[in-house]
């Protein structure tokens, strides 16, 4: 089949005040007609630079320093700027990562789409603005914008993130391009929206036979969507191949490590593989193989020479291991190699909780009322309060890990904060370790804080920016006036979370995301709390780094006998670490149960859909399983739907669901419960219905 895009020996360099940085080197690949090619790598490996080089929109300090980019047989680099403009948006389109910033905020969607359409209609087919508008509406309709006829006049901020990304797709596809470049188009979106968008992209490919270069860090999406995969590391391609082969038998040590650091249910009883070290900074790239400093198989040659290409059944890999002069040191197979720190503890047996509760929440509701000016009150424009948590009963047992799962707007973070007393419940009561939080005085509450701690979502910004790590770690002792030997305590805490004592003198902005996360954990654990609430502990971290953090959390749980409340949208993490799972939707828990029960036998349609959308880095499992796409988006929590709040998106809904609100029918005792009238249908009729 003819390749639409052929990249030969591409190199990209950035010029900064200090140095010339080589961001991408020796990159060769091609994209064939109608194929989806995944470009995978962790942050800073050059994915986006390649995308921007293809449409020749690198920032002014970046340039293509070598190579050729053949698109439909023509070298894009030799085109004049005017001719290149004809290509952009017309033959090659691009979707950007963050839909919140990729549409111009001060022009209506109509204005932006019509301009884009008119830019390409050329001299031979003159379009009027109203014809262009009509075309724009058709396009918006096609990508699933409801009421496109009217909504086209709206401004970007009036659309949700998912809708904005659909508009971006409509904009990118309006000229029916031969190649679409999608740069992490779903990484800013919720799970159910991500499923909708990837499904849309695939269906558009099937319809228009567009070739797609899909850039992502998410191996699960690659497994589900792509035909071919290119794995990038520090600006070099380390492995390419057909998606089936590559996932079944990854050849490069980096690809293997990446796949093994992905948390899944299978890894629940074990620790995740981690890759030591970090992606090298572009300022001092290692000589030879760029992965060698982190590679467990590295030999002298790896640190001296660039690896050569090795091909096996269409799969290409750049690694010295496959060269004939490689010295065998251990077993031939590098594929099976367990991580170094396998724990001795068997998790299933160590669950001796169930006897004592540590947290008990009773009918908790948390409402937020917008702070209104006096005048608005007089004018009587009081908006409905935002009910973030709408009646929740929950118990957390000592020593267990309870995961609270939900998408944005589900109220999961608010619930976590309320349990810690950082938010006052509007209705109901929270009891922690026998202390009713609403009834004790502030001093008692402060004392209680030593026993319960939180790990905040954004690792770096949760650290006070002008304090050094050592000061941050001693802060809990100063607050609670506990005398400690500062130097010893700091090094003790740093060691506990696997950081070296050199980090003690650093400021937060000098830490990497993973390091800052570890400092946050160390600070939270400084006072030996019993309860730890972790809000999205892996958000914003690369897979290999996130794996290290998850391992650490697991290890500390065993060592210190901690109780975790894990707040996350990432079901892979939940599967890996949780004992029990509570699923939230619009401020309510809709299903709760043991980890295995929830994942094997979901009893609520929403959970069922969430689980079907889990990113599994295995194309076979991924494509065998039917993915359930939810209609629409999460409604405005200010105006939740009547009856069962999930009913507008539910595929099992009946009359009853619209008016009547389902509740759990058994007391809370840790069994599997679901707030659905038809929970016995879920899963069983699922397959027969489609």
């Amino acid at each position, binding site marked *: 089949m003819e390749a639409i895009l052929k990249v030969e020996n591409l190199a990209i360099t950035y010029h900064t005040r200090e140095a010339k940085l080589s961001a991408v080197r020796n990159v060769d690949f091609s994209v064939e007609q109608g194929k989806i090619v995944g470009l995978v790598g962790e942050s800073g490996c050059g*994915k986006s*630079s390649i995308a921007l080089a293809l449409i020749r929109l690198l920032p002014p300090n970046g340039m293509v320093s070598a190579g050729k980019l053949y698109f439909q047989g023509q070298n894009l680099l030799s085109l004049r700027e005017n001719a290149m403009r004809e290509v952009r948006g017309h033959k090659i389109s691009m979707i950007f990562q963050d839909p919140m910033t990729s549409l111009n905020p001060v022009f209506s969607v109509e204005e932006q789409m019509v301009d884009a359409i008119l830019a390409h209609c050329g001299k031979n087919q003159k379009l009027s603005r109203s014809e262009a508008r009509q075309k724009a509406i058709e396009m918006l309709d096609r990508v699933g914008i409801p009421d496109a006829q009217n909504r086209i006049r709206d401004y970007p901020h009036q659309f949700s993130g998912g809708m904005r990304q659909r508009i971006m797709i409509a904009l990118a596809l309006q000229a029916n391009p031969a190649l679409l470049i999608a740069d992490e188009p779903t990484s800013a979106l919720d799970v159910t929206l991500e499923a909708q968008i990837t499904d849309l992209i695939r269906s558009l490919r099937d319809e228009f036979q567009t070739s797609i270069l899909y850039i992502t860090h998410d191996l699960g999406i690659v497994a589900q969507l792509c035909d071919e995969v290119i794995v990038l590391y520090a600006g070099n391609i380390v492995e390419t191949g057909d998606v089936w082969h590559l996932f079944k038998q990854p050849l490069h040590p980096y690809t293997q490590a990446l796949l093994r650091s992905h948390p899944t249910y299978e890894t629940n009883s074990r620790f995740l593989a981690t890759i030591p070290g970090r992606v090298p900074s572009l300022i001092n790239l290692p000589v030879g193989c760029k992965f060698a400093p982190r590679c467990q198989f590295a030999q002298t040659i790896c640190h001296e020479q660039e690896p050569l290409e090795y091909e096996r059944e269409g799969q290409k890999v750049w690694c010295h291991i496959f060269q004939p002069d490689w010295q065998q040191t251990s077993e031939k197979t590098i594929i099976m190699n367990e991580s170094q720190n396998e724990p001795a503890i068997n998790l299933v047996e160590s669950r001796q909780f169930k006897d004592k509760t540590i947290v008990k929440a009773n009918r908790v509701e948390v409402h937020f009322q917008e702070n209104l000016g006096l005048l608005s009150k007089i004018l009587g424009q009081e908006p409905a309060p935002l009910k973030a948590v709408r009646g929740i009963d929950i118990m957390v047992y000592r020593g267990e890990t309870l995961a609270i799962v939900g998408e944005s707007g589900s109220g999961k973070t608010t619930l976590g904060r309320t349990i810690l007393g950082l938010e006052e419940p509007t209705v109901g009561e929270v009891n922690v370790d026998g202390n009713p939080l609403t009834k004790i005085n502030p001093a008692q509450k402060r004392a209680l804080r030593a026993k319960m701690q939180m790990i905040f979502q954004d690792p770096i910004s*949760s650290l006070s920016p002008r304090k050094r790590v050592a000061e941050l770690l001693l*802060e809990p002792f100063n607050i609670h006036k506990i005398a400690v030997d500062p130097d010893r305590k700091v090094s003790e805490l740093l060691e506990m979370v696997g950081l070296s004592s050199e980090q003690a003198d650093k400021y937060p*902005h000098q830490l990497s995301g993973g390091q800052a996360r570890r400092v946050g954990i160390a600070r939270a654990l400084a006072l030996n709390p019993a309860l730890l609430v972790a809000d999205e502990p892996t958000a914003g971290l690369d897979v290999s780094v996130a794996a290290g953090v998850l391992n650490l959390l697991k290890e500390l749980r065993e060592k210190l006998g901690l109780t975790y409340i894990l707040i996350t949208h990432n079901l892979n993490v939940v599967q890996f670490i949780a004992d029990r799972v509570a699923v939230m939707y619009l401020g309510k828990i809709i299903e709760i149960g043991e980890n295995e029960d929830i994942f094997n036998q979901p009893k609520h349609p929403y959970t069922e859909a969430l689980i079907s959308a889990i990113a599994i880095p295995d194309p076979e499992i991924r494509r065998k399983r039917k993915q359930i796409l939810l209609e629409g988006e999460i409604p405005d929590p200010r105006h939740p739907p009547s009856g069962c709040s999930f009913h507008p998106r539910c595929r099992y809904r009946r009359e009853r669901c619209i008016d009547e609100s389902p509740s759990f029918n058994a007391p809370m005792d840790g069994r599997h419960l679901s707030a659905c009238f038809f929970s016995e249908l879920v899963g069983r009729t699922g397959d027969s219905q489609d």
Partner: protein
Amino acid sequence: MSMENTLKTQPLKFNLERFDFILDILRRPQGAIGFTIVLLFIITVIFAPLIAPYDFARQDIPNRFQGPSAHYWLGTDQLGRDLFSRLVYGARIALSVAIPSVTIAISLGILFGLVAGYIGGTVDNLIVILMDSLQAFPSLILSLAILALLGPSLVNVVIIIGITWMPNYARVIRAQVLSAREAVYVEAERSLGATNPRIIFSHILPNVIAPALILAAMDLPWVITFEAGLSFMGLGVRPPTPSWGVILYDGFYNIRLSPWPVTWSGLALIFTTMGFTLFGETLRDVLDPRLSGTRGM
């Protein structure tokens, strides 16, 4: 994160205790020029009696309205006083008004800004309305009106500049506190059990004070021209004290007789302002790139 972002977001250089930021300033041409002018200005202020060849009040009526000569380097004014000596002493006056008034402004601003931002609610609303009202007057006209009532004097000028400048700082501080209050690290401190005073003084204030200090550095030249303007109107520093505004006023009155007083005092003002502005902007860019584009007017 994409490649471009990694390259764009450089870490903030926030460590005021280290002085290597001075080197960063000198490395930029704008900063070097600004730094030199500021340094010259400060040397002039400190060593005024050594630099000035004559006493600033010494009259030489027969030689009035002279142009520059070997005897009088920049010429003389309507009373035959040496312009160079008067300008040198004028630098002292400029700084002795600017520093205390900016200090007053920044102290009051921090106080109001912290209180408004951290307490919020009605207190915040009241302070905001007060600041809005103060800023509803063009500051020069407000100062003129008050000075007309209080009578012109150096102390009054300092107090009035301090008060009219204060809302700028209060606003900046309040905005900083508001965003700091919502910041995750403050939430994290609270969850550790920290008390309010601890959070304000140990965590919020250090973050808030740097932008205010940078703003103050950038405000100095404006305060100097403001004072000169008031003195020019006859409502600031009074003769015979050689404020640059006074020299300018004398020169304006006799502009048809001699161009020199206006020329020299005007140039002194322009160069000082330019030096401080270049220095202040480079300082801001070096210390806190996020503040780029802000300026007190």
